[in-house]
């Protein structure tokens, strides 16, 4: 099938790269030229019709056809084999639970993170070890493709409709892979009931906040609990429905697992212990009005009693646990705070194994 996008002619690739900035086709980083040949290779690999509509991308509701999505992937520097991961992540982000419109336009500094898990991590060559929130071609370019989709098809522009005063560097690219070799627990996507070998989980989160967890399993769990319920977090202010993601270094995960802790045990512990005394929260909160209370908290929280311990989320299942990173240190974990009850809820999608040719 012929490609429908209009064409532009440039002197050469350098000319394209420079003019792409002027045409507002990118957000500040250079992009690769989406030549018809490269885009066609992306389409051939996916085996999808170019005019197939995946959905409307908020906030400005541009129509995401397979062709337009392939163009963004080429511009981001993706290999054709990465395309199915991008499609799975976008499909998850367009799920109503994720509230992509809100994630993209909120003043809160959450951005859509894609977590990849299962054999696809090694098949595609993701960096799942050192500096896992940093380098790796699949990590960087898949995250980048997502951003270019939100830019060119969603029309999500700072100083127009993307209203976060601060945001964070994950707005350029935000994709991380689980360490499938060292993870002592089932991969993240399985926590969502998926039966596929590989999957993606998307979640709207702030930048990872590192924490030092060098003690034994018990002290590590208390450190996690204390860190994730910090007063300034949106989670505890909008605990009723908010979520968050703990990204655990492999050696820390193995230490905790060796002490007998399952993911379910950890979630329960954190739900019970990641709490703040209401009287303390009121000292730091905006104009807490006892007559109104905080509608973001679960109904069972007694808002008339300063001794009430307010949970960071409404249910243990709102805390997601991924294992990623290198093994050089035995003591680092990162907490990725969520947006609260407004949106950015984690959504999972299966990812097919890649074709061998690409």
């Amino acid at each position: 099938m012929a490609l429908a996008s209009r064409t532009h002619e440039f002197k050469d690739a350098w000319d394209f790269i420079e003019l792409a900035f002027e045409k507002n086709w990118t957000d500040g980083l250079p992009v690769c030229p989406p030549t018809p040949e490269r885009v066609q290779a992306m389409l051939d690999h996916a085996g999808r019709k170019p005019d197939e509509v995946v959905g409307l991308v908020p906030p400005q509701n541009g129509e995401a056809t397979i062709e337009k999505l392939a163009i963004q992937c080429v511009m981001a520097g993706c290999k054709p084999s990465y395309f199915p991961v991008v499609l799975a992540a976008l499909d998850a982000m367009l799920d109503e639970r994720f509230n992509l419109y809100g994630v993209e336009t909120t003043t809160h500094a959450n951005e859509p993170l894609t977590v990849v898990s299962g054999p696809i991590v090694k098949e595609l060559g993701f960096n799942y070890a050192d500096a896992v929130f940093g380098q790796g071609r699949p990590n960087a370019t898949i995250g980048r493709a997502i951003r270019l989709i939100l830019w060119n098809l969603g029309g999500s522009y700072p100083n127009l409709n993307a209203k976060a005063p601060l945001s964070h560097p994950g707005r350029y690219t935000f994709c991380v892979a689980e360490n499938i070799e060292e993870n002592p627990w089932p991969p993240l996507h399985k926590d969502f009931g998926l039966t596929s070998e590989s999957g993606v989980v998307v979640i709207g989160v702030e930048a990872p906040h590192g924490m030092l967890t060098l003690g034994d399993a018990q002290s590590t769990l208390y450190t996690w609990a204390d860190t994730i319920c910090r007063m300034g977090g949106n989670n505890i202010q909008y605990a009723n429905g908010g979520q968050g993601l703990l990204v655990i270094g492999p050696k820390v995960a193995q230490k905790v697992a060796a002490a007998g802790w399952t993911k379910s045990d950890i979630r329960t512990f954190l739900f019970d212990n990641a709490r703040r005394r209401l009287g303390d929260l009121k000292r730091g909160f905006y104009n807490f009005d006892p007559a109104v209370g905080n509608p973001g908290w679960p109904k069972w929280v007694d808002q008339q009693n300063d001794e009430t311990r307010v949970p960071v989320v409404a249910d243990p299942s709102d805390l997601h646990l991924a294992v990623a990173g290198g093994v050089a240190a035995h003591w680092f974990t990162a907490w990725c705070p969520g947006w609260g009850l407004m949106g950015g809820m984690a959504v999972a999608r299966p990812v097919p194994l890649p074709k061998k040719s690409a």
Partner: protein
Amino acid sequence: MANFVVLDPTVDFKGLAKIANLAPKVDDLNGKVLGLLNHHGSAVSGAANGRDPFFEAIKSTLEKRYKLKGVVWRTKPNLSRVAPKEMLEEIAAQADVVINGTCS
């Protein structure tokens, strides 16, 4: 000279008006029921009883300018999400015009 061809990465944004049916506009507010659908009225905005001070100002301004038949006020349960279908249907049935607050 120019021989390096690329495909256009952009699309025409549909916005909201192109994907939703807009109701006809009301010429005169006199004798009409005003609907106010405000976002999550909470302590964030200094609101009392789940009502936003901005909407209070809109309401008092319109009440001074027009003889409204009544005011129906609802607060969305989630400030960022679309209001539940039942709430939209209720306010649409009771009000002649609705001012919808949005906050992300």
